[in-house]
Structure formats: structure tokens, C-alpha cells
């Protein structure tokens, strides 16, 4: 692997993927508010980055109403997990090769 993943490389998306892949595949994922706290992004900014990741097929976004309140849950797709692992391996290779 000698190229970064352009989708994941962006700092907010990198943090999003790190958070989502830290959850077990069997988990429901993380909700939007939690991701906002972990990434430090604003609502609009995070929403745009999640759209980007979803278009790449790296995350699955589920919107539902819980106790009459909207709740957005995001989960890493199997494809996203593989892409993130590759990107992390790429970053490690840069450090090891330095």
C-alpha cells in the first residue's frame, strides 16, 4: 500500500472512522451527538463529512425516532473497516520508513 485513502485522510473523517471502527461490528455504532463530541466538529460540518463517508460506502447512517426525538446512528461498514485499517497501515509504513 503506497497511497493514502483520500476519503479517510481528512482529519474529521479520520477521527470519525477511528471512533466507529473502535466499536465492535456487532454494536449499533455511535450516535451523532457522541461523534460530534469526539471529532469537535459542528453539526453541519459533521453531517457533510458523514455524507462523504456514506457515499464512499464506508459508513451506514440510520435515522430513527427514539422517544419522539430524532436520533442518527452511524456505524462503520465492513468496507469502511478495511479501508481504515489500510489507511492506518499506510500511516505506520510512513513512520517506519522514515
Amino acid at each position, binding site marked *: 500500500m503506497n497511497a493514502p485513502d483520500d476519503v479517510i485522510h481528512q482529519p474529521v473523517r479520520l477521527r470519525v472512522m477511528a471512533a466507529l471502527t*473502535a466499536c465492535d461490528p456487532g454494536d449499533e455504532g*455511535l450516535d451523532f451527538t457522541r461523534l460530534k463530541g469526539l471529532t469537535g466538529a459542528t453539526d453541519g460540518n459533521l453531517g457533510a463529512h458523514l455524507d462523504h463517508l456514506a457515499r464512499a460506502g464506508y459508513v451506514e447512517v440510520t435515522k430513527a425516532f427514539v422517544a419522539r426525538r430524532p436520533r442518527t446512528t452511524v456505524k462503520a461498514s465492513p468496507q469502511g473497516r478495511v479501508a481504515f485499517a489500510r489507511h*492506518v497501515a499506510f*500511516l505506520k509504513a*510512513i513512520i517506519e520508513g522514515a
Partner: protein
Amino acid sequence: MTIRSDEAAAMLADVEDVVAKVKQSRIYRNAALIIMLWGVVDLVRDILIAIWPAWFGPRWFFIDAVGVAGTIALLRAGASPAGRFPFRILAAFALFYAFGWIWANLLGDFAPRQQMAFWPTLFLFGYALAGLWFGAAFSAIGLGLTALIVAGYVWAGDAFNLWLALVTGLGFILCGLWMRRA
């Protein structure tokens, strides 16, 4: 796109930071449920003892058994599908209980008021220790509630049992709710 090694190192550090926060959040979420469960157990037990002092003593065991069964169920539910049941946590609870039982029944000479203060502070000491490995919220709960129990022991007089019900019952429930958000 060219990435320098210092940039790559910074990105990996960022990844590790986020992963650590997510893992801690999972620990807090699972522990919060157990803490709230024991809040309910303690509240029921202490109110029973306050109303009917005959509940003091061996009958504790039956109420605590409900708490232990609930703790096992929550530990099982909280274990990741790929992970193993966290026997070490259960073993830690058992060791604390055994240590407490030896002092409360064999070596120590505790009056009922001292027994009432001893058991929750023993387990809260465990929380304070757990905080050194699993997150400061555990230590905050352990030390904070211990301080309140000691204060009640010294100043609450005859209302100590109800004070305990408040601190270990409602206190645990509130701490659990706080921990879920930490």
C-alpha cells in the same frame, strides 16, 4: 499526496486518542448500569433496614444476591460478542466480598452502625482503585460517596441508615447517570 512522517505520527496519535475515548466510554456505559443496579439494591436494602431493623444481618445476603445476579447478567450483556465474559471483574468483586466478610464476621468487632458504614466504603474503595486504570470517574464516585458516608457516620446520628439509603441508593443511581454521560 505526500505525507511527512511527523504528520503521519500526529494522525496516528489522533486515532489512538479517539479510540481510547471510545473504549473508555464503553467501560463507563457498562459500569454505569451496574452502579445504578446497586443503587436500587442498596436503596431497597437500607430502607428495609431503616423500617424493619430485623432485616439487618444475614438477610442482607438475599438482597445482595439479587444484586450479584444482576451484575453477572449485565457483565454478560456488556461483553463484546467477540470478547470473553469478564471473569476478572467478577473475581475482584468476590475478593472484596471475601475480604469484607473475614473482617466483618471473623476478625473485626463491628457494631451494626460500623457494619453499615464498612460494606459500602469497602466497595467504594474498590471503585477508587479502579479509577487508576479505567477512568477518573470511578475514583470520583468512590472518593465522593465515601466522604458522604463518613460524614453521615459522624454527624447523622440516628438518621444514619436513611442517610446511607440516600447516599448509596440515590447517590449510586445519580452517579451512574452521570457516568453514562461522562
